[in-house]
């Protein structure tokens, strides 16, 4: 098998599995911070009980996130050595900044959150919760900078085939950084808050820990409602930005084969690349032009505008992008329903609502994974958009059989981790809040 394809699959497996965990961390650290703030202000034990329970779950999520994150950092050297040589001047910097400025903060103070409740003052404990929240979100910021630079590179010059940094600020705040950062963090808040709302709903459904669950449900739902609605706006600006900065990616997302004025928005279809045709297409006329340029007759570039060897594949980005949007719309609907239920006070009693929340727990993860697939596959054939091809980024000294071996090993290990993670998570949930601390 081809070493480029194997390395791509390995990166997809490693990144896809890793990304189950960071979004949960973003959402859960936010909710822990809210609870610790309420506890500090009101002095009510119940907030402490809830927070301590969530911190235990966070600890489990965090170790798997760390363990699988190292794999990603190392993989730029192990599997993508040419990438490291050719763009390392720029790409290494945000990863190093992440370590120095963010990941240390998050990891060191997580130690205090997990084991230090009785060893520090309440204010220092609150500060630790804040620093873990802040470190997690800052960490995400540097990682999104690194990835956004691959999407919309800026602040560099090519010298002898290598990209060299010329403007740090321009590289950090490249055209897609801020929009993609907000999009990713909101995705994390949706993932984490829906996870905890589902957890609270599960207890309510089983009539366990009721006062605990009502508070947790309320806080999680409020954050979920805000995030899911805000994500609608953020998702839209993300699409507008892709249309402007990576037009062939948007053309693939929408299977827009030819450039046209008044381009339609695809809702469903089966694009077939070899025929340049989309079967069973359902679309809204002129809507893509309207959404992207606020003008129903605006011109949107189609795939044929680009050289055949510079076009992304269509089917996978198209399908992933549309599934992500469908899920995002579902979250907005669920948020609206949740807001209504919360307003009427039926959110704590309606069993069908609790069942829906529990069933929704895995959905944000699917949306996250499909979003990344759309973003990354839609950038192909480039590793760094119009700078470095993926095929030229791979390590030259690593033979295919070694990548195949590591790919098989990672897949087996990750399946094992996932099974054990779910089993332990269920065990912690069944045991419920208030169980003994480890330290």
């Amino acid at each position, binding site marked *: 098998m081809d070493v480029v394809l194997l390395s791509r699959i390995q990166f997809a497996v490693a990144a896809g599995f890793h990304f189950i965990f960071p979004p949960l961390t973003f959402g859960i650290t936010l909710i822990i911070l809210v609870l610790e703030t309420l506890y500090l202000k009101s002095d009510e034990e119940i907030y402490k009980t809830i927070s301590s329970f969530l911190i235990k779950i966070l600890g489990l999520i965090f170790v798997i996130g760390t363990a699988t994150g190292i794999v990603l950092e190392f993989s730029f050297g192990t599997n993508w050595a040419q990438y490291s040589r050719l763009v390392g001047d720029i790409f290494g910097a945000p990863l190093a900044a992440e370590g120095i400025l963010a990941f240390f903060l998050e990891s060191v103070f997580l130690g205090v959150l997990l084991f230090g409740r009785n060893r520090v003052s309440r204010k220092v404990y609150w500060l630790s919760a804040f620093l873990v929240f802040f470190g997690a979100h800052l960490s995400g910021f540097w990682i999104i900078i690194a990835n956004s630079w691959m999407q919309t590179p800026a602040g560099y010059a090519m010298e002898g085939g290598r990209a060299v940094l010329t403007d740090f600020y321009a590289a950090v705040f490249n055209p897609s950084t801020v929009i993609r950062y907000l999009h990713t963090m909101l995705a994390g808040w949706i993932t984490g808050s829906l996870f905890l709302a589902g957890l609270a709903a599960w207890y309510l459904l089983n009539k366990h820990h009721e006062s605990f669950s009502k508070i947790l449900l309320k806080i999680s739902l409020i954050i979920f409602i805000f995030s899911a609605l805000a994500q609608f706006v953020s998702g839209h600006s993300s699409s507008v930005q892709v249309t402007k900065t990576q037009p062939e990616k948007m053309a693939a997302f929408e299977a827009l084969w030819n450039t046209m004025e008044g381009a339609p928005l695809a809702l469903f279809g089966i694009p077939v690349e070899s025929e340049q045709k989309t079967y069973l297409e359902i679309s809204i006329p002129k809507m893509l032009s309207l959404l992207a340029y606020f003008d129903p007759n605006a011109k949107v570039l189609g795939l044929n505008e680009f050289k055949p060897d510079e076009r992304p594949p269509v089917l996978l980005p198209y399908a992933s992008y549309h599934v992500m949007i469908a899920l995002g719309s579902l979250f907005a609907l669920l948020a609206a329903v949740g807001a209504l239920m919360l307003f009427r006070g039926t959110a704590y009693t309606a069993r069908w609502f609790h069942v829906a929340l529990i069933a929704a727990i895995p959905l944000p993860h699917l949306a996250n994974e499909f979003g990344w697939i759309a973003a990354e596959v839609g950038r192909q054939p480039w590793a760094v958009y119009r700078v470095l091809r993926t095929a030229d980024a791979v390590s030259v000294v690593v033979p295919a059989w070694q990548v195949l071996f590591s790919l098989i090993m990672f897949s087996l290990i990750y399946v094992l981790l996932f099974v054990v993670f779910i089993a332990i998570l269920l065990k*912690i949930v069944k045991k419920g809040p208030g169980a003994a601390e480890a330290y």
Partner: protein
Amino acid sequence: METLAFLQTSWYVIVGILLAGYAILDGFDLGAGSLLPFLAKDDEEKLAVFNSIWPFWDGNEVWLITGGAALFAAFPHAYATVFSGFYLALMLVLFALIFRAVSMEFWYYDEKRRGLWSAAFTVGSLLPSLLYGVALGNVIVGVPLAASMDFTGNFFTLLRPYPLAIGLLGLSAVLMQGVTFIAMKTDGTVQKRALDLFGGIWILFIVTLLLSFAATVIYMPESLTSPLVWASAAVVVVAWLLCRRFTAGGRMGLSFGMSSLIFAGLWGIVGATHFPNLVKATGEAALNITMYNASSGVKTLTVMLGIALIGLPVVIIYTAFVYRVFRGKVMTSK
């Protein structure tokens, strides 16, 4: 000194500090993990060992993550050569680190398979502790490199006598860290076991140090002319002697401090021997990957130096604060 050379030297030192920091700090939890079957026989004792390292190990591992990322940012060619060239060895390290990271947590909750998870923790600690030194030994003594800076050897190239000797030295230094840390943090049976193990590990260390010395005489005698190497070696030996003294006197904090100083001294030897090289080439010195031909440009090195000079002191301050928060013995019922 011209600007670029100054920046390259600064980054050489920073990467060295980060990796040495990793060795010293994660060293104690890697060591405790490697020695777990000898330190703890039942669940309660294992819990005491885990409790000693639980609040720290995650932060300790960030030294590796940051060290790797700093190497990537400052010297991308060295990062690319080592990580792709040592592919299979690094994959073994990664598999081990993954299991190690999750196994304490899994051990705690998955009561039915505690034997499995504590074994995973031990193997996951032992394997990297050995392989780090092997990798370091290779870049110091030299590996076959092409003009493109790519590694041209194979997995077995890595297993030559010199790197293996350095691997054993690194492992024994890690075991010293582990045993002195556990003796400092615990009491009762676990502490007694740690103290019983100390003597053997203390001897083991000097044996592996002499072995590395012999390997150096054979394979790279030129490094023995540097006075800085001898000065660092003197620090190592004095710290090694004091470590036993403090342990015998029951002053385990100082004993752990001396063990850490041994590790710092070893890194001093590495720096004195190896500077300004990052990856030496076998045979031809012109092919060496050095801080001069492997680095990023002035702009990147400058911006990142600013971030490191502001960020790292802050990291050290709050890390010290958190270590203070968790000072003293862990709670054990025995």
